[in-house]
C-alpha cells in the first residue's frame, strides 16, 4: 500500500485510537500463547493416544480392501485338482447363481483360463501347472505333490508362503495357488444382485425384461401375480435384506419421532412450573430446574443402556432414552423462553379479568408456541441422527444392523447401502424441519 499520511495525522490517529496502537504485552502475546498451547496440547495428545504406535500397527492392506468392498463385489470360484480331472467349484449361495458360466472363465480341453480384466492378465490351470500371465509376461508355477513353486524371476505381484503362491492382479482380483487347489477372487464394480437374488425367477434379467414380465406374460408362480412376486422377491433378497433394512430404518425414525414428541408434550407443562415469572415459588422453580438438569446430564447413552436392560433391545428403549434426555433439554429451553416473554400481553389479559389459567393461555402461549414448536422440530431432526447411534448400543433400529454388518468385515456394500438410506432420511428430515421452522418463526430462526 503506497498511500502516504502526514506525520501530524499519524500522531492524531495514534492518540485517537490509543487502544488499538498500544496493546498491553499480554494482549499482544495472546495469539502466540493460544497457538502455542494448542500445539503443545496436540503433541501431548499424540503421545497420550499413542498415535504413532496405532498407525504403524494398522492393517492398511485391509483398508483398501474394505473401501473397495463398498462399491464392488467378488466371485470366488476354485479349481480342485482331482486325480483324473480339474473340478471347478463355486461356493453355495454364490452371487453368480446355480449354474454359472461366466465369460471370464473359459475351458479348452483340460485347461481352464481365467482372465482378469484383459487378455494380458490371466491364469491357465491344468494338472501340475498353472501358467500366470502378468501384463503379457508368462510365469509358470509348477505344482508338486506338496507345494506350489514360485518360478525364477517371478513378477513382483507374485509371492510365496508356506507352499502357496499368491498373485495379485490389483483391483481385478487375486489368486492363491496350492498343491490341491487354485482359489480365485475375482472383483467387479457395482452391487451384485441388488434387486433380485439368484433364487428369484427375475434374477439375471434386464430391466426391460423384468418390467415386461411384471405387467404381462405367464404367471411365474401360480399363487400370486407377477408384480407381487417381484415385490416379494425384492424385499426378501437374501443378500441385501431390503425388508429388514427398511423396517430397522423405520424403527430409528419412530424412535426419534415418538421420543421427541413425548418429550415436548411433557416438557411443555413442566416448563411453566420451572419458569420464575410464572410459578411464584422459588422452591418449585429450583426443584424443577434441577430435575431438568438431572435428565439432561445423565447422558442419553446411560438412559439407552438402562432401558435396553429393562425393556429388552428394541425401539422402546430408544424412545425412552430420547424421551428422558430431551424432556430435560426441551424443559430447560422452554423455561428459558418463558422467562423471556413480554409481560405486556399478560398484563393486558389480566386487566380484563381473566383467570390465571386464561392469562397463561391467551397471554403467554401464543407468544412462545411457535418457538416451542420450532425447537421441538430442531431436536426431532437432530435425534434422527442420535437414534442411529443409541441404536448401536442395543436400542435396536438401523444402528444395530449397521454395527452387525460392520462386525462381519465383509458386508461393506450393505453398510454403504444403509449409509445412503440414512443420509437420505437425514437430508429429507432436515429440509422438512427447516421449512416448517422458517414458516413458524421466520428465516432468522436458527
Amino acid at each position, binding site marked *: 500500500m503506497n498511500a502516504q499520511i502526514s506525520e501530524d495525522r499519524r500522531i492524531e490517529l495514534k492518540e485517537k485510537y490509543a487502544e488499538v496502537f498500544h496493546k498491553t504485552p499480554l494482549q499482544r502475546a495472546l495469539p502466540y500463547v493460544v497457538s502455542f498451547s494448542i500445539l503443545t496440547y496436540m503433541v501431548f495428545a499424540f503421545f497420550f493416544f499413542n498415535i504413532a504406535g496405532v498407525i504403524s500397527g494398522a492393517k492398511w492392506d485391509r483398508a483398501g480392501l474394505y473401501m473397495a468392498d463398498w462399491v464392488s463385489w467378488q466371485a470366488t470360484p476354485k479349481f480342485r485338482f482331482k486325480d483324473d480331472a480339474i473340478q471347478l467349484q463355486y461356493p453355495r449361495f454364490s452371487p453368480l447363481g446355480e449354474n454359472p458360466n461366466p465369460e471370464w472363465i473359459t475351458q479348452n480341453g483340460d485347461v481352464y483360463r481365467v482372465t482378469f480384466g484383459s487378455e494380458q492378465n490371466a491364469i491357465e490351470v491344468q494338472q501340475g501347472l498353472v501358467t500366470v500371465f502378468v501384463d503379457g509376461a508368462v510365469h509358470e508355477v509348477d505344482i508338486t505333490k506338496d507345494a506350489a513353486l514360485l518360478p525364477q524371476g517371478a513378477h513382483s505381484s507374485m509371492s510365496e508362503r508356506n507352499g502357496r503362491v499368491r498373485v495379485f492382479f490389483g483391483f481385478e482380483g487375486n489368486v492363491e495357488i496350492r498343491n490341491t487347489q487354485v482359489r480365485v477372487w475375482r472383483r467387479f464394480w457395482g452391487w451384485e444382485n441388488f434387486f433380485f437374488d439368484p433364487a428369484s425367477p427375475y434374477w439375471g434379467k434386464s430391466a426391460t425384461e423384468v418390467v415386461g414380465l411384471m405387467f404381462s406374460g405367464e404367471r411365474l408362480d401360480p399363487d400370486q401375480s407377477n408384480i407381487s412376486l417381484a415385490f416379494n422377491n425384492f424385499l426378501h433378497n437374501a443378500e441385501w435384506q431390503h425388508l429388514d433394512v427398511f423396517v430397522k430404518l423405520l424403527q430409528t425414525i419412530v424412535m426419534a419421532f*415418538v421420543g421427541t414428541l413425548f418429550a415436548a408434550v411433557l416438557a411443555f407443562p413442566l416448563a411453566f412450573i420451572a419458569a420464575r415469572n410464572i410459578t411464584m415459588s422459588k422452591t418449585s422453580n429450583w426443584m424443577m430446574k434441577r430435575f431438568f438438569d438431572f435428565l439432561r446430564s445423565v447422558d442419553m447413552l446411560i438412559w439407552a443402556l438402562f432401558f435396553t*436392560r429393562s425393556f429388552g433391545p*428394541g425401539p422402546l428403549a430408544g424412545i425412552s432414552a430420547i424421551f428422558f434426555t430431551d424432556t430435560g433439554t426441551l424443559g430447560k*429451553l422452554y423455561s428459558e423462553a418463558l422467562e423471556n416473554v413480554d409481560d405486556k400481553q399478560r398484563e393486558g389479559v389480566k386487566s380484563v379479568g381473566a383467570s390465571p389459567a386464561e392469562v397463561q393461555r391467551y397471554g403467554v402461549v401464543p407468544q412462545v408456541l411457535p418457538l416451542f414448536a420450532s425447537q421441538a422440530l430442531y431436536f426431532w431432526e437432530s435425534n434422527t*441422527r442420535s437414534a442411529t447411534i443409541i441404536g448401536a448400543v442395543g436400542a435396536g433400529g438401523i444402528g444395530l444392523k*449397521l454395527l452387525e454388518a460392520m462386525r462381519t468385515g465383509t458386508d461393506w456394500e450393505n453398510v454403504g447401502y444403509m449409509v445412503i438410506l440414512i443420509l437420505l432420511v437425514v437430508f429429507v428430515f432436515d429440509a422438512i424441519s427447516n421449512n416448517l421452522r422458517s414458516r413458524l418463526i421466520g428465516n432468522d430462526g436458527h
Partner: protein
Amino acid sequence: MSASASTTDLNPESKQVFEHYRQLTQTRRLYSVLTIGILGGLLFAALWFAHVSNSGKFLDRIPYFFDFVLNFLPDEPIEIFRALFDLPSPYADGSLKYDYEEGRHYLFGDFYIPEYFYEMLVTLNIAFISTLIGGIGGFVLCFFASTNLVGAGATRFVVRRILELLRAFPEIVIAGLLVAILSLGPIAAVAAVSIHTVGALGKLFFEAVENADMKAEEGLRAAGANWVERVRFGIVPQVLPNFTSYFLLRAEINVRASTIIGAVGGGGIGEVFRLSLSRDHAAKTYAIILLLFVTIVAVDQLSGWLRRKLVGNQAFEFGA
C-alpha cells in the same frame, strides 16, 4: 370470548371486520385440529409399530421395569465409592465384580489415578482434541461457504454440500471402519467425532460470517487488501468471539458424543460403562454414572461461564 351476543349492536364496518376475524379463527382452528389429528394418528401408528417390533413386549415389561432397578443395587452404598476410587472391597471374592484395585494407573510411588477417572480423562481428551480438529477444519472451510466472501457460485455450493455430508454421515460407520483397520481404541472415536464436528461447526461458523458487518471488509478492499487480508483483518476479528462460543458449546456436546462412541468401540468411559452394566456389576455401574454426571455438569457449567464472559447471554441459543 362472549362477543357474539353483541354483534347486532355493531355498525356494518365493524361487523365486516368481526366476520373476517371469525373466519380467520375458524380456519386456524381447522388447521390446529388437522395438525393435532395427523400428529395423533402418526403417533398411534408409530407406537403400535414400536410395540410390535420390540423384542420384549412393552406393556408386559412395564411392571418389571422397577424390578431391574430395585435388584440392581450394590451391597452397600459405600461400595460405589470404593469402586470409584479403586479401594479394596470387603466383599472381594476374586471375581471381576469386586476387583476394584485392578486398573489403577500408578503415576509415581503409591499415587495412582483410579481406573474410571483415567477412562473419563481419555473420553475428555477425545472430546477436546476432536473439537480442536473439527474447529480448525470448520474455520478453514467456513469462509468458502459464505455468500458474502465467495459469492453464490460453485465454491459455495461444493463446500456447503461437503459440510452437510460430514455432518450427516453416521458417526458409528466412521468409527466402525477405523476400528476394523486400526483395531479398538480412541483414535477411531477421535476421527468419528472430529469429522462430524467439522460439518457442525462449519455450518454455524459460516452463518456467523454471513451475518458479519461488511463495512470493515469494504474499507480494506478500498485500501487494496487482497482476499486473505480482508478475511483476516475485516471478518475474523468480528466473528472470533462467536466462533469461540460455538467452539465451547461444541466441546460440551462432544463430551457426550465421545461417551456414546466409546460404547460402540471407541474406548474411554463409555466402553467400561457398557461392560459393567452388561456384567451386572452394580457398584461399578453406579460409580461410573456418578462420575459421568458430575463431569458433564462441571463441563456444562465451565463452558457456560466462559461463553457468558465472551459474548454475554446471546451465547445461549440452542444448537446441537
